[in-house]
């Protein structure tokens, strides 16, 4: 069904190699998230898979067939764009029906499929409206509706939630995950938000400057990052990195410890420091501590640990959770 394989895929714009060379396997039914900082080539990679850009080299295999030279429509993929890209002069109904109409389906079949999609996405009451009469979340659902009616081999999402407010984003995140449970279709989802990546993915692909840094399940990446980049990118707040003599004591060039793996105490511990800023979230508190001779460390403590700016605290890293990296930034295990 919807398995996708990239073999040695590269993309060059002019003299600028945006994607040097990528190999990747995506299994049928998987929810894969491409994540990485802005400009790292996530959208480009997705557009290569969609066929909206030609590959400079390499091959794309979809469902066992070489699709490298196929036009977008023939690849059996659907895409949800960041701007939604709804057709503004068509009603919601016509928007959702458009791919079916282009495929030459029967009027009755189209009506039934559109009604089904509208029901799944809670759009039944809005079918006769124009896109501009809808809220952002509703537009998003129309875009998804247009993608699902065709029953594609796989869905491609390019930062579909970035135009929504925080509350709606959490909601839609859940809805897309539920949709994936229902349809069990392969989904490739691009985001630069590591929370979206962690919560939704079966498999995360971390990209940096057009290269794959690591592929794995969310918890895999969290517990066993391969290198400094992945360690710093996955997890919020960011992992603390310490180099110099402290790291040398652990036979490493750099050591990393996540904020949630630092144990705080008011009277004893490995490192000592002064509390700079305390961010109270209620359940948790993020402490930015200026540790003596180390630098700023972020620590995550329970909400009832009472400290304020200027207090002296002691921090102890959990030795089981300490990450060690060599001078090339690769993890030492």
């Amino acid at each position: 069904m919807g398995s996708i394989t990239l073999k040695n895929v590269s993309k060059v714009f002019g003299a600028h190699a945006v994607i040097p060379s990528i190999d990747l396997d995506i299994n049928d039914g998987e929810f894969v998230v491409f994540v990485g900082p802005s400009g790292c080539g996530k959208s480009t990679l997705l557009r290569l898979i969609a066929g909206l850009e030609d590959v400079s080299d390499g091959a794309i295999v979809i469902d066992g067939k070489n699709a490298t030279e196929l036009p977008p429509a023939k690849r059996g993929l659907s895409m949800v764009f960041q701007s939604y890209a709804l057709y503004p002069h068509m009603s919601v109904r016509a928007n959702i029906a458009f791919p079916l109409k282009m495929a030459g389906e029967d009027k009755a079949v189209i009506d039934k499929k559109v009604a089904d999609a509208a029901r799944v996405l809670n759009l039944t009451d809005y079918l006769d409206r124009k896109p501009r009469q809808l809220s952002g979340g509703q537009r998003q659902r129309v875009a998804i509706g247009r993608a699902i009616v065709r029953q594609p081999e796989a869905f491609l999402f390019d930062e579909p939630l970035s135009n929504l407010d925080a509350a709606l984003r959490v909601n839609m995140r859940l809805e897309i995950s539920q949709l994936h449970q229902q349809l069990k279709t392969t989904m490739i989802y691009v985001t630069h938000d590591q929370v979206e990546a962690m919560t939704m993915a079966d498999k995360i692909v971390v990209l940096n400057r057009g290269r794959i840094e690591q592929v794995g399940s969310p918890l895999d990446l969290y517990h066993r990052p391969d290198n400094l980049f992945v360690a710093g990118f996955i997890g919020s707040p960011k992992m603390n990195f310490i180099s110099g003599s402290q790291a040398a004591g652990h036979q490493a060039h750099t050591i990393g410890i996540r904020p949630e793996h630092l144990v705080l105490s008011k009277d004893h511990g490995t490192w000592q420091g002064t509390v700079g800023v305390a961010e109270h979230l209620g359940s948790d508190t993020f402490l930015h501590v200026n540790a003596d001779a180390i630098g700023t460390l972020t620590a995550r403590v329970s909400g009832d640990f009472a400290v304020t700016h200027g207090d002296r605290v002691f921090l102890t890293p959990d030795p089981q959770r300490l990450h060690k990296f060599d001078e090339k930034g690769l993890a030492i295990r």
Partner: protein
Amino acid sequence: MATLHTRSAARLMIAPSVLLLLAWMIVPLALTIYFSLLRYNLLMPGMEEFAGLTNYTYFLTDPAFFQAVFNTLAIVLGVLFITVVGGIGLALLLDQPMFGQGIVRILVIAPFLIMPTVAALVWKNMFMNPVNGLFAWLAKLVGLQPFDFLANAPLFSIILIVAWQWLPFATLILLTALQSLDEEQKEAAQMDGAGAWSRFIYLVLPHLSRAITVVILIQTIFLLSVFAEILVTTNGGPGTQSTNLTFLVYAQALLQFDVGGASAGGIIAVILANIVAFFLMRMIGKTLEA
């Protein structure tokens, strides 16, 4: 203009210019109506007298009048058809990335910058002339008899010349509209399986509808009063075959020195233009609102 307050404030602000424009329009109109009711011939100065509606009956029963109405409409519709269809085609071509895009675009705009009289003369003498013209030369090259455009198809020739002048305008407006079409929409349609033709019909054409409306509206205003091209090329002839309303009024006033008759013709032209405007607004007002 969201609130009642801003709306009335806006009215107050606009009032002076509206009044000025109204006076600007009313005075000449009133004078023309006044003249149209007089027997007023420039060859007989000082002999003006009230003539009632004679001028109107005279103008309306003139066989040249119906020919002129028909010619006016033919020019407007003919030119609109050629410029809109041609403009869409050219805009689609110019939107493609190509070598020397800037220069090609300037070349396409050029006809619009040429004065109507000059353009008409160039067409008359360099293209359509049955002896020296380019078309005649081309015809002879393939062994055909040269065709005397201005004598045998005067109206068609004028439509061609005027369309040539207005094509750049239509192309330019449609091109800018085309460039504002969201790239992601085109890509979405591509993913949805729409071919080039379907994308044109379902995406590009609806997107252009507003620009097409603007082109039709503006051009109609100017095309109703085409004059220089006729004067320079055919002088309304042969006979009255290429006389439009504007030219008929001119002939009445300045060739027959009949100011009264010409004024009546002018008023009739205004009424006809308003009828056209009424239908135009009904037809396309909806597109502009949407």
